[in-house]
């Protein structure tokens, strides 16, 4: 009877909660399904389904969870009670037909699925409907559940509820059903058990079996418990989710506000701020976090405070590193702010601990941006190393000294040096890039060469002094900006104009205007306005700001602006595509390059040259001021990217920096679009003139100069960081960076004093143009031809032959498993060009004192000229 009752209960109970239709559908398949469902796991599903409903209704509130467990427990008890009773008493009381029906429903799972049902239906009058419903229900969720129920029965033996069920099956069922939805489900399993017994018709055996089945019951219990737990967890989870989300979100928001996007963007921003902090330090941070730093040191503190919150979410944890870095940097920046850009030590700390991690995190795009920005800085180092012209060096040194003497206290210099060293690690990483990096860096992410700044350096040679002065001035301005409200205003104006994005968007007409204004030159205000108009589409805000800065700011910003405009004034990039080959070759020869084969190559080269020249003007300024510019640029870029609003942009870029940055940006834009190379030549004189006036102004901007020094210092030290740098920037490196790296590699010894560095940088910039341009071109595959291939190939050959003897790892290299390149070649191994080139640039060429890097194309030519089988990595598996 108990079994019958159970069956009834099941049928009734499941129906109310669930839709009858479902039950019917289930019932039909039941016989077939039953066998499958015989296993306990399905029960879980049923429980889970039932529980979720209730819970879902109750949802987040703990009540649901509490209810659910209760329900689960109750049904368990009932089921268990019923089961034992049913097993024992049912056997006696239950009618055979009922049993058969039960068997049909449950039994099929174990024994004979479909057959019993009709019999049961016919036999059971009372139970027929219910049985049908029962088996159906059972079949649905219960089939599996039945088995589980049996298990339950064994565990909970002899409970009062079981008696009830056994007594009046239907009645009990009704009662049971009423209490909760879960009950019916549980009851259904019981029924299934009973059915199974019926099928066999051997009640005793069935009982024994059930007893044997106890373990599965246990599992079922576990399931129920689990389900309950899950339910509770579920509800909690939901609630937690909501809560956590809310809680986390604010944090994230705070972080985001500082850094911008959650992950990648943050990284970028973070990196930028770091870089900026390194270069200009506070400015960049200020731009990112609140742009307040530039205005007031106190603002960054606020941001930092917001960041320290603990992270609960995974994303928060993941981003915590970066966010913390930002915070630290911010703090550092804040601390430094009072000291003014001398906070190198702080920077150093941040860099040492956090920056490395952040560097690794950089996304390629971000890295590229950084590199672009940094190029100027690097350029200075390289310039220092390579500068040969005594005049430029002297002039730059004099100018630097004059400016420094005015601006820098000795203590500040020391600090700067420290900061430089520490920061050098970070900055070094940039600079330190290995030759491989060179090659890579020489190209854009798209594969096109990026050497605007480096090339510019060449042009600067004439105006090296002024450029240096300018840089100092600009730096001083940048530093001063935070201090002086006027400067801030200027910065805003500059910032608005400088962002590359805007300049890029600027129509040619604007450029023309800029150029005109530039031609007018000396008037600071017009220059500023011109720049503003040129760079940004002359936003009204920027104009007003520019006017203010012009007034408040010294001549320097306008000068910078002028220089930029001059560069921009330089004839727009000629349409090389329209040139004949002969003309192109002439143009190339004018740049001092050897004839290049291929029209496309020639055009590319000319464009690069032109860009470089055009950029050189800007770059020369930028190089001298390179640090500030770079800082500004990144900041402005960052600002622009995350925060389109002009205000953010203005905040990011420093006034003087903005001027320079604007120039750079303009130049970059111009170069990108096709900047006039011719103008570069023209600009050089103009630059010199600019530089002179700037120098006068520079004296006033002592603080600014310090900043520059620190930045410059950072740049030179990098030999240690080279590896990191190479890893990070391998692809993103820009040509300028590459040059810097090469220079670094060559000299390896950082410039002794900031002034020297500056001078060197300026010199380098001047001298480089020729050599650097050629080198950079060589890096590019096509440009390799320009450099005498014979020369390089001889070096490569030498390097290959020298490798085993010179390399400290010769033993390992000479081992059988790791043959040297020479051995590979001798053994006819196909040489993988990428690997071989990487080795050459990292190690091989260094062994033979070759500073330049080689591209895979030139290496390929070398291999092919030697008859050495070479292939690309993708084909190496052939």
């Amino acid at each position: 009877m108990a079994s019958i009752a159970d069956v009834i209960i099941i049928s009734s109970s499941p129906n109310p909660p669930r839709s009858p239709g479902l039950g019917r559908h289930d019932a039909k398949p039941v016989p077939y399904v039953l066998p499958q469902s015989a296993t306990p796991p399905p029960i879980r599903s049923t429980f889970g389904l039932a529980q979720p409903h209730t819970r879902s209704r109750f949802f987040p509130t703990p009540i649901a969870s509490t209810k659910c467990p209760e329900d689960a427990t109750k049904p368990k008890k009932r089921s268990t009670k019923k089961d034992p009773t049913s097993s024992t008493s049912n056997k006696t009381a239950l009618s055979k037909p009922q049993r058969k029906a039960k068997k049909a429903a449950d039994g099929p799972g174990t024994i004979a699925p479909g057959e019993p049902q009709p019999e049961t239906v016919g036999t059971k009058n009372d139970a027929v409907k219910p049985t049908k419903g029962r088996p159906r229900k059972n079949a649905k969720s219960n089939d599996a559940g039945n088995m589980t129920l049996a298990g339950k029965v064994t565990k909970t033996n002899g409970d009062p509820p079981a008696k009830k069920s056994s007594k009046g099956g239907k009645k009990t069922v009704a009662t049971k059903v009423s209490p909760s939805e879960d009950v019916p489900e549980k009851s259904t399993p019981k029924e299934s058990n009973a059915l199974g017994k019926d099928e066999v018709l051997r009640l005793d055996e069935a009982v024994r079996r059930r007893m044997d089945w106890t373990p599965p019951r246990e599992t079922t219990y576990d399931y129920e418990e689990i389900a309950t737990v899950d339910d509770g967890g579920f509800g909690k989870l939901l609630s937690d989710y909501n809560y956590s989300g809310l809680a986390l979100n604010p944090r994230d928001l705070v972080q985001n506000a500082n850094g911008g996007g959650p992950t990648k963007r943050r990284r970028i921003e973070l990196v930028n701020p770091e870089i900026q902090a390194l270069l200009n330090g506070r400015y960049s941070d200020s731009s990112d976090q609140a742009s307040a730093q530039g205005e007031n040191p106190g603002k960054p503190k606020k941001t930092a405070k917001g960041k320290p919150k603990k992270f609960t979410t995974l994303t928060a944890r993941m981003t915590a590193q970066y966010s913390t870095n930002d915070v630290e940097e911010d703090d550092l920046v804040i601390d430094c702010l009072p000291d003014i850009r001398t906070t190198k030590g702080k920077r150093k700390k941040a860099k040492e601990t956090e920056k490395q991690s952040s560097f690794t995190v950089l996304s390629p795009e971000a890295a590229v941006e950084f590199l672009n920005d940094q190029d100027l800085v690097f350029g200075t180092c390289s310039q220092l190393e390579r500068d040969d012209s005594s005049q430029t060096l002297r002039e730059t040194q004099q100018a630097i000294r004059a400016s420094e003497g005015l601006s820098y206290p000795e203590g500040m210099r020391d600090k700067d040096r420290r900061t430089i060293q520490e920061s050098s690690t970070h900055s070094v990483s940039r600079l330190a890039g290995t030759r491989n990096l060179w090659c890579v860096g020489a190209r854009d992410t798209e594969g096109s060469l990026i050497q605007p700044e480096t090339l510019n350096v060449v042009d600067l040679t004439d105006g090296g002094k002024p450029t240096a002065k300018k840089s100092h001035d600009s730096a001083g301005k940048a530093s001063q900006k935070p201090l002086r409200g006027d400067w801030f205003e200027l910065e805003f104006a500059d910032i608005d104009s400088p962002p590359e994005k805007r300049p890029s968007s600027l129509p040619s007409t604007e450029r023309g205007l800029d150029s005109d204004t530039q031609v007018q030159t000396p008037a600071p205000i017009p220059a500023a306005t011109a720049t503003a108009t040129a760079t940004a589409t002359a936003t009204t805000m920027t104009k007003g700001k520019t006017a203010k800065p012009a007034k408040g700011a010294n001549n320097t910003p306008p000068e910078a602006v002028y220089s930029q405009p001059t560069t921009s004034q330089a004839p727009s990039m000629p349409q090389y595509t329209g040139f004949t080959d002969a003309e192109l070759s002439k143009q190339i020869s004018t740049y001092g390059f050897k004839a290049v084969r291929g029209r496309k190559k020639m055009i590319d080269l000319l464009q690069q040259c032109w860009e470089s020249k055009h950029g050189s003007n800007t770059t020369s300024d930028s190089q001298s001021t390179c640090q500030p510019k770079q800082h500004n640029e990144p900041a402005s870029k960052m600002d622009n990217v995350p925060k389109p609003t002009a205000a953010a942009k203005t905040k990011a870029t420093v006034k003087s920096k903005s001027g320079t940055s604007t120039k750079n940006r303009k130049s970059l834009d111009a170069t990108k679009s096709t900047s006039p190379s011719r103008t570069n030549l023209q600009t050089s004189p103009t630059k010199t003139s600019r530089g002179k006036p700037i120098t006068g102004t520079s004296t006033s901007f002592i603080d600014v100069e310090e900043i520059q020094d620190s930045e410059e210092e950072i740049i030179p030290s990098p030999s240690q960081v080279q590896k990191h740098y190479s890893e990070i920037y391998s692809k993103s490196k820009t040509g300028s960076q590459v040059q810097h790296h090469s220079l670094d590699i060559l000299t390896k010894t950082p410039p002794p004093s900031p002034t020297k560095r500056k001078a060197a940088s300026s010199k380098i910039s001047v001298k480089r143009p020729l050599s650097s341009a050629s080198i950079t071109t060589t890096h590019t595959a096509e440009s390799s031809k320009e450099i005498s291939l014979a020369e390089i190939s001889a070096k490569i050959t030498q390097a290959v032959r020298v490798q085993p003897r010179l390399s400290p790892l010769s033993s390992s290299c000479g081992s059988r498993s790791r043959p040297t390149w020479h051995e590979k070649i001798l053994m006819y191994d196909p040489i993988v060009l990428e690997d071989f080139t990487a080795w050459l640039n990292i190690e091989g060429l260094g062994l033979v004192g070759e500073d330049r890097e080689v591209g895979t194309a030139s290496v390929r030519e070398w291999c092919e000229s030697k008859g050495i089988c070479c292939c690309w990595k993708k084909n190496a598996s052939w």
Partner: protein
Amino acid sequence: MEESEKSRPIPAYYCCYLLRSTVRHASLYIGSTPNPIRRLPQHNGVAKGGAKRTARDKLRPWEMTLVVEGFTSRVGALQFEWAWQHPERSRHLDSEDDLDPKPRAKASANANGKTGKPKPKPRARTRRSLMAHLEDLHSLLRSTYFSSWPLRVRFFCADVYRVWRAWNDRVDTRLPDNVKVIIDGDNLPTPPDSKQGDELAPVGSINNLSVDYTRLEDHLEKSMFMLEDPDDLHCTVCKESISPDEQQIVVCPYPNCRGTSHLLCLSTTFLDATNKPDLLVPTQGICPSCENTVQWVEMMRELSFRNRAEKEARAILRKKEKRVRKESAAVDASSGTRSSSIEPRSMLEEPTQDDLGPNWFEEVEIESDSDFEGRQKHRSTRPPSKLEIVIEDSDWDDAELVE
């Protein structure tokens, strides 16, 4: 790191071939394969895997009119194949001398757009004449890239060779010395003795080509035996002791020469003998020990196979051992296989019994493994004297090769 990739030994055989339809001689096909003996039936539809281009029944059967053999890497063979198939797009033909105007013109036309994939020429390569193919082949063999490769051209068809000769007469430039031309197949009045070990000797037909490592067995046996006990071995060049486990040791291929050298030492010696300071890979040299002229590639084949395919090398030695034993006919069938598998090891190991190197156990293990495999193989399939190193043929005519 990339050792796995680079551990590949120089293939025993790899060739590019010019396939010609015996039905329609104008139908030509250029392919490459490590095993022309297997490849030709594929083209003819006898075996599975023929190239689509050669699938037309009307053109079958095909014949291999010539093969360019001696490639030292699959990559190299594929590069050569591609260049031969796409002479108008190959980088190795555009810098050619002025002697063959055709490729030159093509090359110059492509010079501008070199970086990008040159536009396909209207003339399909199937439409090209035998003469054009031979011209391209000639140019390729003279190209700076391929000219230093140890390639051999083996002509199986007399008429093709006649065309080749005709073209050679028209071209002033001669092929580089290291490129050998072998007249083979029906060029020969009488089928040659297939038992010759010289790879320059004619073999009579494609089926007689030696496409496995077995021709290295003598050299291998000598070198492995010698290097088992390297204590008293010294580099013939630098006179320092050698450590085969740590260094690349070259062993003179001449049976009676016990010359062993460091790879770099010997190469330097060979290169110094030449008057080409820029050369990195010698083509041949005089063994400092036996004063015989040795081919560099020959030693490299042995070296790479010995160092990178130790199992196979030992398997080959075992096979040789077995074959020798069979020939002697002194061993009965039952104990033969067993002893043959064990004996080589014992023979090789005994000399080192006194002072076992750290790698001794490893070697033993490897040997035992390979022994087992070898035994299995021998029992199931008796004849296979060829080492089964499966290297795919290149059927991908349109594959983006190295260019």
